């Protein structure tokens, strides 16, 4: 079970308080109507799903209810950093 540092509460909390919300930085296209079916499908469903470094969106559901990002290794499950929405990750895959 993960121990996750909530960047808003400023302390570690148990995974039970959080929900994983999938890959981070999937921005909604600014002009959806201009998207082809393929582009819209890519936005909706297609994911990097890497084995290794993964930037992902979580929400502190039972705590402050804020969404934030985690950089995590999907193989070892190590959390390498947490960062707020709008911030850039400092740990990235090679």
């Amino acid at each position, binding site marked *: 079970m993960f121990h996750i540092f909530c960047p808003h*509460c400023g*302390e570690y909390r148990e995974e039970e*308080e959080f929900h994983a919300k999938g890959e981070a930085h999937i921005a909604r296209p600014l002009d959806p109507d201009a998207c082809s079916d393929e582009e819209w499908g890519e936005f909706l469903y297609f994911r990097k799903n890497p084995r290794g470094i993964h930037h992902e969106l979580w929400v502190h559901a*039972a705590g*402050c209810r*804020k969404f934030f990002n985690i950089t995590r290794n999907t193989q070892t499950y190590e959390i390498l950093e947490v960062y707020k929405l709008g911030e850039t990750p400092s740990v990235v895959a090679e």
Partner: protein
Amino acid sequence: MSDVNNEALEQAPIKLVMNQLPAIDVPFESPLHHVELAKIAEHGESQGGVVFRELSLGLLTLRCTPNAEQATSIEAILGVALPSKPLTSVSSASGELTVMWISPDEWLLQVPQDKAFELETRFFAEVGGHYSLVNVSGGNTVFELSGEDVVKVLKKSTPIDFHDSEFPVGKVVSSVFAKSGATICRTAEQSYQLVVRRSFADYLWLWLQDASKEYGLTVTC
């Protein structure tokens, strides 16, 4: 037709502020009303390691990212500044008001039941800019848990670390609580307040009775 509408629009308030308390005396039923806590207090165990009390308070959710102006006007209304440090709470000198940090843009205000509308009215009149203040008194209830075994019961219910070094008096956290949730504030050395949702109150009451069984549970009013 259009004239009427325009007039209505001109008069239309930005926000609805509403006194929700009856002017006449009508029965007030807290979420644990059906449990008849008073009877249990009278006839139940008196020496329990855990002491339980349901408090009926006025509760308001304030959502805001205060700018300097807002901070000043809010402090003027509350008498205390909004605690900006995560997981902290402050109380007014009189103890009538407590403000709990919930999230970077959310606080829970505790006041006596009959002060909620007054507070809302003053906010509406005095605080400008973007914020939201919502009366949630009916949607929540407050359990006060105390006694020498209180921490053990809390440790059964939530994965928060209650060690003195981690959870001093005044700290407030929101977390899972059994299969529900709660906002937990340490109000004294051996006393904690749990703000819980109304519809879960009965479940949590059952849970707390069960979890306290091995220490004994005393109900007070």
